C-alpha cells in the first residue's frame, strides 16, 4: 500500500473534525472546565490562593499537563471509537473492498485519530498560553514528544477497543468504563506517588499515566517538590511507544483476521433479510 489511501483516511478525519463544530468546541471546553472548576475549587479548599502543593505551588498549575493530556485522551479515543460508527454507517465498506491488506485500515485509522488528537492538543495549548497557564520553564522538544507520544498511545488504545467492538450500543459504557477511569487513574489529578497502594498500582499499569507524566516533564511546575514528575523521561517514552506498537499490532491482527469481521458482514446483510 502506498501513501495515498493513508492520506485519504487522515484527510477525512481532519475534515470531519473541523466540520463537527460541537466536537471541536467540547474538546476546547472540557479541559477548561477541569482547570477552572475543579482546579480553582481545590485551590480554594486546600490552601486559600495557591498553597495546595504545600510549597506555594497552585493546584491549578499542577492540572495544566493533565488537562492538556485530557484533550488528547478524549480526542483520540473518540476519533478511534468512531471507527465503530464507520463499521455501521458504510464507510468501512469502502475501506474493506479497497485493494490493500485490512491491517492498513487500522494503521491509517490510528494515525488519523492521533493526528486529530494532536491538533486538539495544540488548540488547547494555544488557549492555555493565552490564559497565561503555560510554565515559563516549558521545554518545546519535550512538549512535541509528549503530544506525539500521548496522542499515539491514546489513539492505539481507542483502535484496540474499536477493533474488538461490533456496535456502538455500548459507547456510553466505553466512556464510563474506559476513558474516565484512564483519566482519573493517571496522575492527571493527583501525583501518583501520593496515591494509596492499590490505586498507585493501577495508575502504573495505565499507559496513559506515562503520557501525562511526559507532559509534566515538558511543563514543570516551578519550584514544587510535591508536584514533581513520577517517572523518568526514558521510561515514559518507552512505555508509550511500546504500548502503542503492541496495541496496534493486536488491533491489526484482530482486524485482518477476516473471521473477526465476518460476523459483522453477516449481521449487516441479515438485518435486511438476506
Amino acid at each position, binding site marked *: *500500500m*502506498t501513501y*495515498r*489511501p493513508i*492520506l*485519504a483516511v487522515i*484527510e*477525512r478525519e481532519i*475534515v*470531519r473534525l473541523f*466540520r*463537527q463544530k460541537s466536537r471541536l468546541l467540547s474538546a476546547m471546553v472540557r479541559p477548561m472546565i477541569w482547570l477552572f472548576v475543579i482546579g480553582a475549587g481545590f485551590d480554594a479548599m486546600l490552601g486559600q490562593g495557591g498553597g495546595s502543593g504545600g510549597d506555594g505551588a497552585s493546584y491549578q498549575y499542577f492540572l495544566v499537563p493533565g488537562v492538556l493530556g485530557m484533550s488528547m485522551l478524549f480526542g483520540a479515543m473518540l476519533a478511534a471509537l468512531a471507527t465503530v460508527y464507520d463499521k455501521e*454507517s*458504510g*464507510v468501512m*465498506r*469502502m*475501506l*474493506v*473492498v*479497497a*485493494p*490493500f*491488506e485490512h491491517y492498513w485500515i487500522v494503521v491509517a485509522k490510528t494515525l488519523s485519530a492521533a493526528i486529530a488528537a494532536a491538533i486538539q492538543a495544540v488548540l488547547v495549548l494555544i488557549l492555555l498560553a493565552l490564559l497565561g497557564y503555560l510554565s515559563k520553564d516549558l521545554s518545546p522538544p519535550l512538549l512535541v514528544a509528549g503530544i506525539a507520544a500521548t496522542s499515539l498511545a491514546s489513539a492505539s488504545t481507542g483502535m484496540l477497543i474499536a477493533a474488538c467492538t461490533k456496535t456502538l450500543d455500548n459507547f456510553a459504557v466505553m466512556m464510563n468504563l474506559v476513558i474516565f477511569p484512564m483519566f482519573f487513574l493517571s496522575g492527571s489529578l493527583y501525583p501518583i506517588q501520593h496515591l494509596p497502594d492499590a490505586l498507585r498500582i493501577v495508575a502504573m499499569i495505565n499507559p496513559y499515566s506515562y503520557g501525562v507524566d511526559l507532559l509534566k516533564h515538558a511543563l514543570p511546575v516551578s519550584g514544587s517538590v510535591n508536584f514533581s514528575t513520577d517517572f523518568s523521561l526514558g521510561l515514559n517514552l518507552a512505555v508509550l511507544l511500546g504500548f502503542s506498537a503492541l496495541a496496534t499490532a493486536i488491533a491489526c491482527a484482530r482486524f485482518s483476521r*477476516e*473471521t473477526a*469481521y*465476518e460476523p459483522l*458482514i*453477516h449481521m*449487516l*446483510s441479515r438485518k*435486511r*433479510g*438476506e
Partner: protein
Amino acid sequence: MMRDSPALATALAIRARELTKRYGDMLAVDHLNLDVHAGEFFGLLGPNGSGKTSTIHMLSTLIRPTGGTAHIAGHDVSNDGVKVRAAIGVVFQESALDRNLSAAENLRFAGLLYDLPRAEIKRRSDELLALFGLTDRRDKPVASFSGGMRRALDIARGVIHRPQVLFLDEPTIGLDLPNRKKIWRFIENLRAETGMTVFLTTHYLEEASECDRVAFIKSGRIVQSGPPHELVRRLGAFVIEIEADDTDRIAAELAPRLGHAMMDGERICFRFNGDAAQLAALQTEFADRIGALRWRKPNLNDVFLWVNETSADCESPAHTPSRDATLQR
C-alpha cells in the same frame, strides 16, 4: 465445459468451483459452480436468504469460503485478496458513503483508496457525476441526497477506479419505480462506455430480463441458469391460470395432463405447450367447476416461481417428475 483449464480461468471474469459457505449448521452457499465471461451482464436471482449476498461477499473477498475456490479475473479470492479487490468494484445493498462529506469528497476519498492521482480523480469524478446526473449536487453533503441520488453516487463510487468486474447487490432495493429505471439507465450507459463485467443480484425479476444470462439460486444452490429469453421459452408456450373453489382437486385431476401445478391461493397455474384448440376444450370440460381460466405468455417471474416451487419439491421425493425442468448440472 466445466473442466478447469488455466486458459479458461484467465478468460473468465468470474469462475467459482464448488464454492461453499457454512454458518454453523446453515449452508448459505452450497457447492456453487459459476462461470461469468468478461463483459457479460450476469444476474444471480433468488428469494431473500437464498445465498445471493453470501456469494457476492465471498467473490469480493469479504468473507472466506468454507470450501471450494473462486477466481476473479484470474486471481484467487482466498489467497490473493488484494489483487481481487483491485480488479473489482462493489456496490453493497447498504450505502457505502460518508453522509457528512459531499459527493465530490466521497468520490475523492474512494479514488484515493485506489491510489489514483488527484487530477485523475477529479477528471473521472466530473465524468461520473455527469453520467449519473449529479453534476449540480457535487458539493452538497450526501446527507441531503434522496435515496435515488445516493444510490447513483454509490455506484459512481464503486466504479471510479474502472474495475474489470462490478458487483451490484440489489442495486435498486428500496427505490421507487422512476428511480429504479434511472439506475438501470445509468448501468446501461456505464456498460456501453466501459464494457465492464457486471454481476448483479436482484429479486425484481423484470429488471433481470436485461441480463445476458441469469442463474436462479435457491438454498445456496443454482437451480437453473441461462439467457432470460431462453429460460422463459423453456418454461412453456403459455401459462394457464385457473381460479376455482376446489383448487386441490382440480390440480390433482389436471396434473397427469398438464404436469405439476403452482398453487397460488385461489389460483392454480400450469405450464402449457398445447394450442388454442386444446385450451378451448379444457375450458369447456371444466366450465361448470371453475371461476375463470386465462392463459398468457410466460415471463421471468414465472420462471422464478416455478424454480421455487419445483425445487422445493426436490426435497420431497414424491414429486420427482418435475425435476427435469430444474436441474441443469
